[in-house]
């Protein structure tokens, strides 16, 4: 059929070629990624990371699946709601599932909100574009924003 030497060449050449294309595509697409991040967005991102928010939530679909996706949270809930969650000194649990009580300062909460807005305004190829309905089962809790 084929020899071990040929199989080895298949491995080496295939790896080299696809790796070269991968690096070229990386350079090409990263050139278009903006790196001029406003200060408040950067601090928001830092807080997001430092507190491991991704250990419960997802953002851009990445993280854990215990708590809501936050890519468009500002669109969905509005700024005041999000802020009150962030500064709350007791665990936020509108429907029984608890969040860690971070008790962020005003400024920290604003940075996180700036971070969410920055993410929310990105072109994510259609991800999280669905309009959220609040389930009829919990109408009393809040109005959706759509």
């Amino acid at each position, binding site marked *: 059929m084929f020899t*071990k030497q040929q*199989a*080895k060449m*298949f*491995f080496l050449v*295939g*790896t080299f070629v*696809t*790796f070269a294309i*991968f690096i070229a*595509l990386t350079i090409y*697409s*990263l050139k*278009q*990624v903006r*790196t001029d*991040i406003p200060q408040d*967005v*950067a601090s928001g*991102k830092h807080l*997001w*990371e*430092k507190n*491991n*928010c*991704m*250990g*419960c939530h997802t*953002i*851009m*679909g*990445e993280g*854990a*699946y*215990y*708590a*809501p*996706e936050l890519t468009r949270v500002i669109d969905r809930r509005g700024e005041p709601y999000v802020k009150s969650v962030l500064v709350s000194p007791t*665990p936020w649990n*509108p*429907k*029984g*599932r*608890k969040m*860690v009580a971070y008790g962020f300062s005003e400024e920290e909460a604003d940075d996180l909100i700036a971070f969410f807005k920055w*993410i929310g305004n*990105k*072109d*994510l*190829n259609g*991800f*999280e574009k*669905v*309009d*959220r*309905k*609040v*389930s009829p089962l*919990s109408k009393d809790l809040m109005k*959706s924003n759509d």
Partner: protein
Amino acid sequence: MKYKSQKVAYWFWALSMLLLSIQLTYGFIMGFDHLGYDGLHKWIPFNTAHTVHINTLVVWLLAGFMGAAYYIIPEEAETELWKPFLAYIQLITLTVVGVAALAGFHFNWWEGRKFLEIPHELDYLVALNVILFLVILLMTIVKGKKKTTTALVLFGGLVGAALLYLPGMLQFDSQTLDSFFRWWVVHLWVEGVWELIMGGILAFLLIKLTGVDREVIEKWLYVVIGLTFLSGILGTGHHYYYIGVNKIWLIVGGIFSALEPLAFLAMTLWAVNMYRKGQKKHPNKMAIYWTLGAAIVSFLGAGVLGLAHTLPQVNLYTHGTLVTDMHGHLAFWGAYAMIVFAIITYAMPNLTGRKFYDNVRGRLAFWLSNIGIFIMVSAFAAAGVAQVYLERMLGYDFIDVQKKLYPHFWVVIIGATILTTGLILYMINFIKYGLPTDEALEN
């Protein structure tokens, strides 16, 4: 065993089993959190449990691979390990760093980047530890009599894994860039270099267990890892669909990641065919079970369940839902957990010299753990599909949907209990029959 220094492998595997126990415990904590029983929230909130669960997973698998390398490389190179006491030092430092990281996760000391939560300060110690590990292996290979393909592929995979840890240490202000390079670690590990490690271990096991000629087995090893990189490197694009980078990744990622199952299929066919062809079957039956099991279940978990959500049209809806959990569990289990159990099961009787190959407990361990994980994964699948439909398609609120998923999470708990029972039986065998002795040396 053939060389005294191979014994160190057992202690790496002991660390593996310890970390696995912690992983399972924290898995239960998360499972109950999902069901509303969150009594531990104050001390172990969900994000702590999640971080412990996935980091103990990664480290127990890596410790398993390290044990495998310390067992396999001397035998392949036909020499004792280079400075075996350094291997013990490496084990101890690895344990210390691991314990520090795990403790830190309970005190908000981490980096919230899924799978790479180990704090930056500890990353440097991890890097040093891994360099020591690689130097020991390299020196062993250099001074050895033979440089086999199996040993080189295994070593190459380990070096690749170490190098790919570095992009994960870069820091960015942009979430897009952060995510972009996080996948260089996470994706290029599990769908790249770890497959080389798995392939190397699998080749070694097939050579020992089936008696098929080494040249034949190693020829197919090249085919498998060739397919791996051919599809897996550009397949990274399946994580770049929705993070704010160029649309070209929708096409490149879609096409190449859809080819990734071929590498796993090749692995299955390779293992099954070698087993069929083999004339001199090894008496260690349980090792054969785990070896063929890994080759088959990895195709189901990584190949089939990966393909299920890898096309952008589908992933748009399933991205970041419990569907991902379904795939994550069976892929890690089939490919990496099972291959670690396979090499341990093969090596144990050789380390002890007891020729103790088969018992009811060992068989139960195999069947219960596999049945348990299948139940769990089916429940995650049902929960995931329901979540996608209600939340992503109909647009219902997240928490309202989660409450509809409770029945599925009870099934997750049932599956997890069966899985854990199986693994406890495995660990009993590991403790009872595993302790290595020098008398076990074969001439």
